[in-house]
Every structure is written in structure tokens, then in C-alpha cells.
């Protein structure tokens, strides 16, 4: 792999032991994936933020590091709201203390303590930029909706990229590897399914696996694209998808689709997912809510009071910038929770059945929370939480 003079100096240890180790990680990954060079990145999103994931040895390793990130970097969601963990039932002081130690270790490295699966709401991210992001739905959104270029990084590789400011040039960084491999059609188009994008993604992801799908005949907006991609990344391993005439690369490149396999997401299959089930909690915000989604939830909750726990998950910065919407939502009895989510927080473990508006959460809640999952539209979720 080609390294420039500065990379070589980093590798030789001239900029300290931590940077040297980080460069060694990038060089080894470059070898593993036969990358020809390193490419500069605009930002990084580092996984391995939760103590539950990295454990005491991960924390020990982080604590030995001595360097600062070279590009803006944020973290994955963690198991609790950073500062307000006492307000969420089910978080023990011991868990909170260990989590705080992990965050302190990342802060020392210059990483912003924004723990979110939607870094694109915080860090302006442009078409064609190279990134080193790690959370599956964020990777899918960056690649597909923005047209930025990132592989799905592991914790140490994203951290190494953040500290060096570069990542190995392979996989989805290379334009030729971003061509679609399968065509997906939605049987009835999206007219009857505008609120069902999470379900469509959940069904499509199971068929698509790790291929790059191109959807035809639908016209989703940004939040619908977010729901679609997040669900496909969860039920399949989709890191990039295209929607003909909607997502940016379909307007820049000409993709040959004649010879590709075609898959249809059936209308009946979509409707069958929306089966009724008694639930004891409702959770919205997987991935974390956009400002528009917060506004929609606030409007749906107007003049209503919750009768069940209703949790709305969001990036801390988005909550901070929309205090009126947060206030309107919380006046109903719902709780707006930053930094964490329904999938990674132990606070969700005590529910028997959880209703979600997300295809991704629908895929993960049974395994991660040990609860039954019901999927509904956002309006159906609010109706159930307030009836």
C-alpha cells in the first residue's frame, strides 16, 4: 500500500506511540483488503462507545491512548442518557459509572461526546466525501442519501481513522464498487405505503442480504430513506442502496440494471407485518429523530396524554436545538431521551412487548431487549401510547 512521507513518519513513531499504533492498524487493514492507498476523511463515527460492548479491557486500552483526533468525530449511541441517566428507570449507578469512564476516555482523545446514530444532523456531510463511520444505519444514510463514501467500520478502525485522519481506500470508497446488484420493486408503489418505509426495508433487507439494491417506482423523502436504509442494514447487511431518480448517485452515474435480478416487496407482506399485539411501551426514534420527525411527534401528541411509557430517542444536539418540540412532546407525559436508544439501553429490558415505528427496531428488539416487537406507523404508535 502506498504511504506518503508523512504517513511513513507516523508509522515510524515520530508523532508518538498512539499515532504509530493507529497507523499500524490502518496499514494492516489496508493489506487485509488490498487497498492501494489511504484516503483523507472528513469525519469519523466511532463504535465501541458502550461499556456493555467493549468491557473492562476495551476501556483499559482506550485509557492507555495519548493522542487527539485529526477530524471531527462522534460516538455511537450508548446505554443511557449521558447526564440524565438517573431519570431513566433500569440504569444502575454501577453501569452509569463504568459508562462515564468510557466517555471520559473518548473525551481525552478529542471525540465529541455526541452519542448518536444520526451524525449527519450534527456534522455537515457532503456528496463525495470520504468518511469512517461505523453505525450501520448512519453508514447506509451517508452512502445512499448523501452520496458520501464510507465502509462500515469497526470500533478500533474508526478510531484509528479519526486519529490519523485517513482510512484505507477499498470497498465503498471506490466508485466502481457502488454499482447496484439487484433491483427492488414495491408491488403497489409507495402511494399506499408512505408510512411503511421501515417495513419495506425490513422485508427487502432479508432478500437483498449484502448486495447493493436499486429501488424503482418510489419517491421517498429523506426521513423515509432513513427508515428504509436503517431497516435494510438490520435485516440484511445493506451499507448502500439507490433509489432511481431520487438518491444522488442515480442522477450522477448511469447504472445498468437490465441484467440484474429483480425482487418485489409484496403489498400483502407489508400489511401482514402490521399485526396487532398488546404492548406495554412505545418507542420512537430508531434511527434518532430528525427535527421534522420531532415536529410530527409533537403535533400527533397535541392535547393528548400518554397512558403507557412513550420514549422518543434523539441526538442530544437535535434535542438542544429544538427545545419547544421537546417541551411539547414531554407535556404529554412522553420522554425525550438523548444519547441512547431502544436497542442498546438496558432500560428497555423490563418491557414484555414494545411497539415501534421502525423496521430496524422491529428487527432488533426481540434479540436485544428480549421483548416482543410490534411495528406501526408513527400515528399508530402515538394512538397506542395515548389510548
Amino acid at each position, binding site marked *: 500500500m502506498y504511504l506518503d512521507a508523512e504517513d511513513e513518519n507516523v508509522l515510524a513513531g515520530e508523532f508518538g506511540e498512539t499515532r504509530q499504533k493507529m497507523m*499500524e492498524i490502518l496499514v494492516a*487493514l489496508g*493489506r*487485509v483488503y488490498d487497498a492501494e492507498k489511504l484516503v483523507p476523511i472528513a469525519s469519523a463515527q466511532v463504535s465501541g462507545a458502550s461499556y456493555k460492548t467493549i468491557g473492562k*479491557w*476495551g476501556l483499559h*486500552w482506550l485509557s492507555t491512548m495519548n493522542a487527539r483526533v485529526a477530524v471531527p468525530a462522534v460516538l455511537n449511541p450508548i446505554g443511557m442518557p449521558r447526564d440524565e441517566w438517573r431519570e431513566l428507570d433500569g440504569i444502575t449507578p454501577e453501569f452509569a459509572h463504568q459508562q462515564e469512564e468510557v466517555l471520559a476516555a473518548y473525551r481525552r482523545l478529542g471525540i465529541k461526546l455526541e452519542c448518536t446514530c444520526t451524525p449527519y444532523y450534527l456534522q455537515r456531510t457532503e456528496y463525495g466525501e470520504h468518511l469512517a463511520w461505523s453505525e450501520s444505519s448512519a453508514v447506509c444514510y451517508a452512502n445512499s442519501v448523501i452520496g458520501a463514501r464510507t465502509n462500515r467500520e469497526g*470500533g*478500533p478502525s474508526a478510531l484509528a481513522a479519526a486519529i490519523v485522519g485517513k482510512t484505507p481506500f477499498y470497498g465503498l470508497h471506490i466508485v466502481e464498487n457502488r454499482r447496484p446488484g439487484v433491483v427492488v420493486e414495491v408491488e403497489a408503489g409507495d402511494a399506499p405505503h408512505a408510512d411503511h418505509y421501515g417495513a419495506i426495508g425490513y422485508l427487502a433487507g432479508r432478500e437483498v442480504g449484502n448486495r447493493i439494491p436499486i429501488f424503482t417506482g418510489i419517491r421517498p423523502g429523506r426521513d423515509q430513506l432513513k427508515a428504509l436504509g436503517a431497516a435494510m442494514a438490520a435485516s440484511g447487511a445493506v451499507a448502500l442502496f439507490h433509489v432511481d431518480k431520487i438518491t444522488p448517485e442515480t442522477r450522477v452515474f448511469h447504472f445498468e440494471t437490465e441484467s440484474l435480478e429483480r425482487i418485489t416487496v409484496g403489498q400483502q407482506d407489508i400489511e401482514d407485518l402490521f399485526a396487532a399485539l398488546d404492548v406495554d411501551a412505545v418507542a420512537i426514534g430508531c434511527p434518532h429523530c430528525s427535527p421534522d420527525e420531532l415536529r410530527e411527534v409533537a403535533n400527533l401528541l397535541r392535547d393528548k396524554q400518554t397512558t403507557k411509557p412513550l420514549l422518543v430517542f434523539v441526538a442530544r444536539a437535535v434535542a438542544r436545538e429544538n427545545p419547544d418540540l421537546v417541551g411539547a412532546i414531554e407535556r404529554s407525559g412522553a420522554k425525550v431521551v438523548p444519547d441512547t436508544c431502544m436497542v442498546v439501553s438496558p432500560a428497555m429490558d423490563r418491557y414484555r412487548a414494545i411497539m415501534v415505528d421502525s423496521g430496524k427496531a422491529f428487527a432488533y428488539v426481540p434479540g436485544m431487549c428480549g421483548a416482543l416487537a410490534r411495528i406501526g406507523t408513527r400515528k399508530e404508535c402515538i394512538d397506542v401510547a395515548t389510548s
Partner: protein
Amino acid sequence: MILKGRSIAKGSGRGELLVSPAPISFLSGVNPDTGIVVEKGHPLEGKTVAGRVLAFPYGKGSTVGSYIIYALQQNGTAPAAIINVEAEPIIAVGAIIAGIPMIDRLPLDLADLQDGTEVTVEGDSGELICGDTE
């Protein structure tokens, strides 16, 4: 005899070969306190990786396995070196953060490596040195 492979993690490590025909998952597959392989039914079950030159096809399982390799090193129960048929990120990252020499792509089958043979892995040059070098 010197066999030339590819450098993955630098440093030099010497020890007796321990060869696994099966991939290894370090998370839940290896006890980080003792270095003993605990995965049920694994060809190395009950054997320790501590101080050995551990040869196996490639890593499997959770990416958190990288931190278990680091834990082995901190506990003094790590392999002296690692040989993979084909390196993948879990083991490569684990070896680097733990400072364990590692090479891959040797020009022979793992089955040709003899358990118990004393060998040296040169992580910088990617070489496996069998027998006396002098």
C-alpha cells in the same frame, strides 16, 4: 528453514507451535485470564494459547475479540505470535493493539506445521523461521 509470508503486526515472537485447523473466536472462545480455549468442541478446547505461536486459518465471531487478545497480553497469557492463513480485521487489530507479532499468507498449508515445533515469527518481515537460525 525460512518461510516468507506477509507482515501484519510487527515484533518478534518465539515459542512452540500450536496449530488449529478451525477458525478461532476470542470473545467467549478463549478465557482471557488463563489463555485456555474454552469453545465447546473446538479442536484446541482445553489447550492454552499462552506463550505459543498460535496458527489458525482466520478469526471469527465478534469484533470485541480484538479486546480479548489485548486482555490476554495484559494478563500474561497471550500467544507469543500469531500465524493466520488469511488475516481479517478482528485478529489483525487485536494483535496490533496487544503488540503481538503476526503474519499471514505463508507458502504452505497449516497442516504442514507440526504442533510443538519451536519456531520464530518475525512480524516486521513477515517471516516464519523453523529450527535453529544460526
